[in-house]
């Protein structure tokens, strides 16, 4: 039997990255007995290898907890841990749509940050009740009062009853659990009405096939029930109903207000649509739920396999990743220099980096990524518009009437002392200031910036200028015309597709020069001199040389070293495969990758 609605609470945990959501979730799970102590790893919900290693949450996660409250009643708590990074705000928005309340976690040593704001506004938009949680109070630098004051001053939420706690030591967790049941509302719903459930997310599981995360609004979802997906029109039989505790636990049914998962013999994730409404095939509900806006990729880059034989493997691997990542877009593409590959769209730079890392790690693919770029709108002389996804495809300038680029509205929160440096950064990046206010002990800076200037290395620069203290969030803010040109990088007179980029004319020289300097440091010396140039059309705007190698001979080589030397040689040869030939020099792809990754900080 499903729980009475008033004994259910659905809530999301939202916070700026690293403020301790996942750790707090661990404590809640542990306190409610979802896992025994010996089963607890740190950040149990971050089960991707990459999540654990980087300490970030990429996918939102759901767990059902059973909490015996002080009033003697056993409550069902459905918790969603959400990603904190701006790239994954889309994941956050979906989670929020399936809950009634949020725990807003603020690190008591850091205070409110840009993504605290972004996430809390999303929660407010979703009509959430919000419980502020002041976390990490075990730290000596914790300042509970200052954090509370920021919640009030910056966000405008009443923080007088904020819960101080520590996800690490467990202090305050009991108060937090009580606050969840007393301060957050129970879900609404009707047991008798026709089944209506929200398809929150879906992913591929190698044991279960496609798993669908659902939030039941009305009615029930039962094993064996024939259901209909209202948008796609597909009908299926439910073969499993279950919840995460976080272990998979199979149940017979899910009732109104409850969250859990179903499987329904679906093989491909593309057969499901996030935001779809699930209803009973026989007794259909009348109106579908509003669903979600589709995610829009903001940053594009291409991946080419270093070994051209791995094209098919890359294709399969991307499809596999896309199974669990609706935001990953990809499309086949070919490049003169790099062969066959894929143009991919991402939510942001972190998303891109993560996908690249997963391809390398989980699928053992060596890839050449091209410079990240945004989507430009190219207007031709006849008034037609085409979208340009890859700088290499830029038409001849004589055919272009004008080019428009996407802009963003960026919000930056920073301690006072770094304001100067950050203003300079924004100005350098062609930004125009919209707002500068003081919020608590910090400045809040709102700027309009070209997205192009941000995808490159803005975030790294922001972190380094502010010693890691400033935080940043952005939203898209339309297109605008600008004086944009294509910058080519040439190695020994041959253009390197992967490094072509579109830049504002005023930035071209600086970018070109820095990239040449970077490459100079990154390309190992070889037998022959290497010339690196940056060019606009036929005009060289910067150049550097890598001088020829002078000495590399190993000092000792005796009988026992022959085998070792030969292995080294084989490695060298294998390494060659990962290089691209430019004239008589070979450039390791890692050099390009590093050049792209690095900022243009001097």
């Amino acid at each position, binding site marked *: 039997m499903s729980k009475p609605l008033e004994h259910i609470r659905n809530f999301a945990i939202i916070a700026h990255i690293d403020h301790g959501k996942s750790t707090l979730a661990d404590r809640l799970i542990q306190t409610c007995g979802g896992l025994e102590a010996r089963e607890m790893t740190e950040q149990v919900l971050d089960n991707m290898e990459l999540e654990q290693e980087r300490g970030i949450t990429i996918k939102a996660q759901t767990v059902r907890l059973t909490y015996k409250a002080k009033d003697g009643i056993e409550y069902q708590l459905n918790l969603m841990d959400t990603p904190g990074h701006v790239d994954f705000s889309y994941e956050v928005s979906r989670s929020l749509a399936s809950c009634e309340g949020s725990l807003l976690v603020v690190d008591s040593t850091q205070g409110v940050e840009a993504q605290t704001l972004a996430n809390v506004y999303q929660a407010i938009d979703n009509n959430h009740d919000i419980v502020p949680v002041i976390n990490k109070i075990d730290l000596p630098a914790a300042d509970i009062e200052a954090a509370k004051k920021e919640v009030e001053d910056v966000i405008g939420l009443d923080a007088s009853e904020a819960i101080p706690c520590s996800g690490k030591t467990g202090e305050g967790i009991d108060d937090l659990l009580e606050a969840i049941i007393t301060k957050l509302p129970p879900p609404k719903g009707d047991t008798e009405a026709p089944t209506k459930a929200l398809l929150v997310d879906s992913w591929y599981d190698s044991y279960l096939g496609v798993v669908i995360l659902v939030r039941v609004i009305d009615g029930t979802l039962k094993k064996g029930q024939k259901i209909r997906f209202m948008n796609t029109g597909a009908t299926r039989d439910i073969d499993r109903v279950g919840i995460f505790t976080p272990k998979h636990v199979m149940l017979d049914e899910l009732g109104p207000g409850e969250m859990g998962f179903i499987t329904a013999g679906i093989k491909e994730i593309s057969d499901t649509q996030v935001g779809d409404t699930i209803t009973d095939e026989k007794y259909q509900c009348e109106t579908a739920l509003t669903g979600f806006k589709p995610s829009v990729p903001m940053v594009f880059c291409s991946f080419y396999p*270093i*070994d*051209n*034989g791995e094209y098919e493997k890359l294709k399969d691997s991307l499809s596999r990743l896309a199974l669990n990542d609706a935001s990953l877009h990809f499309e086949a593409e070919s490049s*003169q*220099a*790099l*062969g066959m590959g894929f143009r991919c769209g991402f939510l942001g730079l972190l998303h891109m980096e993560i996908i690249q890392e997963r391809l390398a790690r989980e699928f053992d693919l060596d890839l050449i990524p091209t410079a990240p770029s945004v989507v430009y709108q190219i207007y031709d002389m006849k008034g037609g518009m085409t979208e340009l996804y890859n700088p290499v495809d830029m038409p001849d300038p004589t055919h272009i009437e004008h080019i428009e680029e996407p802009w963003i509205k960026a919000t930056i929160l920073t301690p006072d002392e770094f304001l100067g440096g950050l203003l300079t950064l924004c100005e350098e990046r062609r930004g125009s200031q919209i707002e500068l206010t003081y919020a608590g002990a910090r400045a809040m800076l709102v700027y309009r910036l070209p997205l192009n200037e941000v995808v490159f290395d803005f975030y790294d620069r922001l972190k380094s200028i502010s010693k890691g203290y400033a935080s940043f969030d952005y939203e898209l803010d339309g297109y605008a015309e600008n004086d944009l040109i294509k910058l080519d990088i040439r190695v020994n007179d*041959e253009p*390197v597709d992967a490094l072509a980029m579109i830049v504002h004319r005023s930035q071209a020289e600086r970018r070109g020069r820095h990239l040449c300097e970077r490459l100079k440091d990154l390309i190992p*010396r*070889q*037998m022959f001199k290497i010339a690196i140039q940056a060019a606009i059309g036929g005009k060289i705007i910067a150049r550097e040389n890598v001088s020829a*190698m*002078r*000495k*590399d*001979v*190993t*000092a*000792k*080589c*005796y*009988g*026992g070293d*022959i*085998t070792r*030397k*030969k292995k080294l*040689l084989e490695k*060298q*040869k294998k390494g*060659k*495969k990962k290089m*691209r*030939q*430019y004239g008589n020099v070979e450039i390791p792809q890692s050099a390009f990758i590093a050049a792209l990754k690095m900022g243009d900080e001097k």
Partner: protein
Amino acid sequence: MKQQGQFGVYIHWPFCLAKCPYCDFNSHVREGIDHDLWRDAYLRSIDHYASLVPARQVESIYFGGGTPSLMVPETVEAIIDRIQQKWQVSNDIEITLEANPTSVEAEKFRAFREAGINRVSLGVQALNNSDLKFLGRQHNVKEALKAIDIARENFYRYSFDLIYARPKQTLKDWQEELERAVTYTNGHLSLYQLTIERGTQFYQDYAQKKFVVPGEELAADFYNLTQDVLEAHNLPAYEVSNHARAGDESRHNLIYWHYGDYVGIGPGAHGRLTMEDNKFATREHRSPEIWLERVAEQGSGVHPFEGVPPEDRFVEALMMGLRLRDGVSLLALEREAGQNWQDFIDEDHVNQAAKEGWLVHQDDCLRLTHEGLLRLNAMVPYLLRERRAQPAVVAA
């Protein structure tokens, strides 16, 4: 050029008194070594190889390590005797022992001579005490010089090793040290640039930036200076790091560089053996204890032999041969592989390298110039043809 049928025996003694921080040789510090057990194991191993490659004439025996001067002379003698019983040996056989120049070991030189050793190679490494200390050595300069004296009294042929391009060493320091070193030589000297080898103490220290070593440019200057000084003293390099008066080259090491055959006995020892025209690479168990056990159980501590296919024979012979001042015979390489040298070497690259002044291609000989030798590691893959399928797409 390569003389056909050269054959040597390498004996590896895997123990040292202490592990030097730069050393990646198979050397171990152990107490209570049972010398009888080790002697028997070497003797059984000799028997084993002698039965596999019986009809050869031994030109050289080399006791390397580790620190073979820690062996008891009786063991050395028994090994030499057994080799002489099992194989034919040449009249002017060279029998070298690596020795560390501590006083204790120097006192044994006479006994080693009596055991049959006729050449020693001393690990002097440096001629100043602070660098010796940095290098973790057990001796000081005075002891080293004394050991050289004793070596000279006992052996007509001796050599010693120095390591240079040390942290903080200047070109001037090295020049002075080198000039001094030359005065103690008698026809042979090995001079190695300090190499930071994976898995050593120095590797960690270096990674943690506890010291720096000369970069490429300075390293090249050190190398050039070394060549100049030694040439002026008629001790030119006959190999990258080995200098000798004409005729005083180490015959044993020449076997390696000429890609001749050698038996490798002892923990971690490698060998190359030609049997019925097939070449095999041999490798013994690295761990002293396991090696001993295998010899006791099976009569040998060697891993299964690995065949060396023609292309690898060609590449190995080229790699080794190019280290020599006199270069490598293309005919010899062709004999190794049973194929034309052009099948493996890119002739255009040979010509290009010759044009750059890196090598000389004359008659059937390929010889690197001084400039070429400096770039040897890159030169070998440059000269070799890309044998495996090229990546399908090359830059437009």
